[in-house]
C-alpha cells in the first residue's frame, strides 16, 4: 500500500499580479519507507505541494490519501493536526519561548501513539522526548532554552520534534538550506539514514540537485507547478526527457538540430553546421522536426591534436565527434572546466584535474551516442 497518494492536486493563489497556479495538476504516490524528493527551481510550487499534503493549505482540487485515509478531496479537508504526519520547516520554526525538551514533547500532548492510538501519559513524554533527542545526538541539551542553539542544533531539534510522534509520513521543506556547506553534506546522510532506519516515508523538498540525487529513492522534478519528470536519480540525471529537466538536475550542453533519421529510440540529428550526431531520441518527434541535443559536460571527452583514441580512430567508433578550439580553461581543484568553441556553438566540458589542456588548443570533442539525448 502506498503511504501517500496525491491525485490531480491543484492550488492557485490570488495575488496582486493576478492568479498564480502554484500547483497545477500534480499526481504522485509514495511507497512505504520511500525517500521521495520534490526538486525544482525557486517558486515552482514545491512548498505549496508539501503544505497541501500537510493540510496547511487547502487544495483547490484533487485528492490526497495518507496511509489509506482520504485527507483532502473536493468535499473534505482533514486539518493538519488530524493527519498522521510530521514536518520540518525551512526556518526550523523552533519555538523560542520553550526549552529544547518543551519543543520536542509539544506534539505528545496532542498526538497519541500511532501504534496503540491512545494518548501518551504525561509521565512518559519526557522519556519519549529523550529518545528522539538521542536519535539526533542532542540529549545533552534537553533543558537548554531554544534560542541558545546554533543553526545546526536547531535543525536537529526540529528533526527530533518531527520524529518524536513516529509519523507515517515525514515532510521536510528544504531542511538543510540554512546550514553551511560542510554541515549540509553531513546532514544529508544523517537524515537519510534516520528515515531509512525508522522506515518512515519521506517527502523531501529541495532546489539543490546534489541533495536530491544523493538522498532520494525517487525524484519528481517540478517546474511552473507541474511535475516534468518522475523517476530514480539515475533516470532523471542520465535520461532527462526535456532540456528543462536536464538543466534543473545539473549543467548541460544544448545543441540545436533536426532529426535526420530515427529508428525507435536510436536516431541521428543533423546540427546547424551539418554534423550528424547519434543520439537517444525521447518523445514523439518525427524525422525533419527540430530538436535539442543534450549532453552533460562531465560525459564529454576532449582529444587534443595528436592524441589517439582507439574508439575514434578505430574503424567505426560509436562516439560523436565535433572539432573545435579551447576558448577558456578554469582550474577548479577537483576538475577543470573548459569551454570549447565548435561550429555548432560553445560546448562545456568537465575534465580530470590533471588533463594538460590549454587555452587555444585545437581539439576534438567526443560524446558517446548513449549520453546524447535528443528531445
Amino acid at each position, binding site marked *: 500500500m502506498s503511504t501517500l497518494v496525491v491525485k490531480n492536486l491543484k492550488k492557485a493563489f490570488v495575488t496582486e499580479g493576478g492568479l498564480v497556479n502554484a500547483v497545477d495538476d500534480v499526481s504522485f504516490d509514495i511507497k512505504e519507507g520511500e525517500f521521495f524528493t520534490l526538486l525544482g527551481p525557486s517558486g515552482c510550487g514545491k512548498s505549496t505541494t508539501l503544505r497541501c499534503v500537510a493540510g496547511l493549505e487547502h487544495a483547490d482540487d484533487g485528492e490526497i490519501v495518507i496511509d489509506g485515509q482520504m485527507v483532502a478531496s473536493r468535499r473534505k479537508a482533514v486539518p493538519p493536526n488530524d493527519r498522521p504526519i510530521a514536518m520540518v520547516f525551512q526556518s526550523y520554526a523552533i*519555538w523560542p519561548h520553550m526549552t529544547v525538551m518543551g519543543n520536542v514533547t509539544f506534539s505528545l500532548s*496532542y498526538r497519541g501513539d500511532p501504534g496503540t492510538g491512545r494518548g501518551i501519559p504525561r509521565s512518559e513524554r519526557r522519556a519519549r522526548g529523550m529518545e528522539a533527542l538521542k536519535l539526533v545526538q542532542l540529549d545533552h541539551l534537553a533543558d537548554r532554552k531554544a534560542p541558545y542553539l546554533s543553526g545546526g542544533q536547531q535543525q536537529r531539534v526540529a528533526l527530533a520534534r518531527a520524529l518524536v510522534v513516529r509519523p507515517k509520513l515525514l515532510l521536510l521543506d528544504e531542511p538543510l538550506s540554512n546550514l553551511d556547506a560542510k554541515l549540509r553534506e553531513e546532514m544529508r546522510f544523517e537524515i537519510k539514514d534516520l528515515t531509512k532506519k525508522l522506515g518512515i516515508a519521506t517527502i523531501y523538498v529541495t532546489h539543490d540537485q546534489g541533495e536530491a540525487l544523493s538522498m532520494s529513492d525517487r525524484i519528481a522534478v517540478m517546474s511552473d507547478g507541474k511535475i516534468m519528470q518522475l523517476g530514480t536519480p539515475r533516470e532523471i540525471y542520465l535520461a532527462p526527457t526535456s532540456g528543462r529537466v536536464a538543466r534543473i538536475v545539473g549543467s548541460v550542453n544544448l545543441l540545436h538540430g533536426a532529426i535526420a533519421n530515427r529508428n525507435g529510440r536510436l536516431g541521428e540529428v543533423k546540427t546547424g553546421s551539418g554534423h550528424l550526431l547519434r543520439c537517444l531520441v525521447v518523445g514523439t518527434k518525427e524525422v525533419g522536426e527540430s530538436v535539442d541535443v543534450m549532453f552533460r559536460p562531465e560525459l564529454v571527452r576532449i582529444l587534443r591534436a595528436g592524441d589517439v583514441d582507439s574508439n575514434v580512430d578505430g574503424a567505426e567508433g560509436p562516439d560523436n565527434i565535433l572539432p573545435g578550439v579551447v576558448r577558456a580553461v578554469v582550474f577548479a581543484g577537483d576538475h577543470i572546466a573548459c569551454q570549447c568553441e565548435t561550429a555548432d556553438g560553445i560546448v562545456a566540458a568537465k575534465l580530470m584535474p590533471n588533463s594538460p589542456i590549454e587555452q587555444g588548443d585545437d581539439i576534438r570533442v567526443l560524446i558517446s551516442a548513449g549520453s546524447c539525448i535528443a528531445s
Partner: protein
Amino acid sequence: MTSTAQFSNSSARQHLHKVGRNVHRALRNWPFVLAVAILLLLVIVPLALLFVSSLSTGTPGNLGEWTFDNYERVFQTPETYRALRNTVVVATIGTAISLALAVLFAWLIERTDMPFRNLSWSILLLPIAVPSILFVLSWTVLLSPRAGLLNVMLRDALPFLFAGKSGPFQFYSVGGVIFLDSIRGVTTIFLMLVAAFRLFDPALEEASRVGGANTFQTFYRVTLPALAPAILAAGMYSFISSMDNFEGALAVGLPGGVYMLSTLVYFTVSLRVPVDYGLGAVYSVLFMGIMILLVLAYRRIIRHSEQYATVSGKGYRPSRVSLGRWRYPAFALVAAFGILTVLLPMAVMAWLSLRPLYAPIVLNADVPLSLVNYANLFNGKELWRVTGNTVSMTIATATLTMALAFLISWCIVRGSARGRGFLDGLTFLPYAFPGITIAIAMIFVFLNPPLNLLPVYGTVVVLVVALTTQYIAFGTRLMNGAIIQVKAELEDAGTVGGARPLAVMWRITLPLLIPAVIAGWIWVAANSMRSFSVPVILASRNNEVFASQIWSLWQIGRFSEAAAYGTMLVLVLFPMTLLLRRLMSRAET
C-alpha cells in the same frame, strides 16, 4: 465547451459550490466571525445610529419622524462655517509648528552630539504623563487675560507698556488654542519619527558632507527630503488628532467665544438650553465625515511611505553630526520644551493643590500652603469612589482592548486575503472618530432600543465601551506589527504537531506576543486615565472618574481640589509612562 449556456451553467454551479464551502469555512473560522461581529457592534452600530438620529426629529430613546430639518439648520447657521474654519486653522498652524519642533528634536536626539540625549528623550516623552485637561487648565491659570499669573506679573512689572485690566496675552482666542495645540502635538510626532531618524543610513549624510555641504545644508537637503514620507505621515496623523482637539477648545476657546467643531458638538448636546440632539448628531456626522476623508488620505500616505526605502537597518554606525558651539543651546531648546509642557503646568497644579479652597488665585506669599486638601479628600468618600471607577474603567478598557486587538489582528494577519482587507478597514475607521462623537454615539446607542434595556447607561460600562472603540485602532495596529514578526511557520509547526488552532494561539502565538501585549495594555491604560471627552460627556453621578471629576470641580470653582486630583493622577501616570518607554525600547531591540 460546446455552448455558452452549458458553460455558464457549470460555472454557476461551481460558484454555488464555492459559496457553500466559504460559509462552511467561515463558520469553522469562529475567531474571524467573532472579530467581525464585535467590530461591527463597536464601530458600525454607533455610526449608523448617529446617522439615523441626524435624520430624526426626536431625542435619544424617542427618535420621532424622519426629517432633513437638522441638516438645513446646520447649513444655515454661520456658526457652523466659523467653527469649521477655526478647526482647520488651528489644526494646520498647530501641526506645522509641532512638526517643525518634533523633526528638530528627533534629529537632535538621534543624529547629533547634543548633550543629555537620554534625558532629552524622557523630556520629550513625559508630556504623555500630563493629561491634556491639566495642561490646558494650568495654562489658563498662567495666561487667562485678567487674572493669569503671567499676565498680572507682566502688567505689574511693566505698567507703562501694558496698561489696563487684561492682557498682554489675550489667551482666550484662536492664538491661545494654537499655542496649546502646537506644543502638545510635538510628542506624538516625535515618537512616530524617532525610529526613522535612528535607522537612517548615515552614509547618505556622510556623502553629502564629503560633497561639500555643511551640517545644516546636509540636514536641509539630504536628511529632510529622504525622510519626507515618514514626516508627512506623522504630520498627517497629528493633523487628524488636532482636528479632534477638545480640551483646549473647551477651556481656552469657549471662554473667548471661539467655537471649534468639537466644542460646537459639545455645546449643542450638553450646554445649550434646551439641548438639541438632532443638531448634535448632524455636527457629529459632518465632523466624522471630514475625519474619515482625512484618515483615508492618511492611509494612502502611509502605504506610500512604507514603500519608500530610505530607512535601512544595515551599515548602521553611530556617527553623529557635530553641533559645535550649538550643542548647549540645542539642549536648552529641549529643556524649554520640557518646562512649557511639564514642569510649569505641573508646578502650577501642585501649587494650587496646596492652597486653601476658594482662595483667589494670585501670587501672594501670605496664603499658607498645606496638605489640607489632600487630607480632606482622603478622609472623604468621594475620592475612593472616583478612584474605584477610574481603576475599574482603566483595567477593563485596557484588557478588553488588547484582547480584542489580539483576536482581530490575528484574523487580519493570518486570515484570508479578502477578509483581511475588510477587517483592516473596519479597525482603521475609529481613527476617524473624534472622542466627542464616540461619546455622543454612545448616548444614542445606549438610550435607544434594544440596548436601552441594559441598565448600563451612566455607568462605567459605557465609558469602557466608548474608550475601547476609540483605542481599538491603535491596539490592532500594534498587534498587527507584532504578529507579523512572529513567523507563520512557528504556528504551522504547532498545527502540524497536532495542536488545534486555539491551542496554537494559546501555547505559541500568545506567549510570543506577551511583550507587545503588555506594552499595548499600559498604553491603553494610560490613555484611558487621561481621556477627557468621553468621561465628561458621559458623566453621571455613578461614573465619575478622575478626568471628569477634575473638570466638574474646576467648573464650580473648587480649583484646589481639582488640582489635588490632577496632581495625584499625574503621580500615577509618570511611572507608567517611563515604564512604557522601557518596554518599547526593549521591544525595538
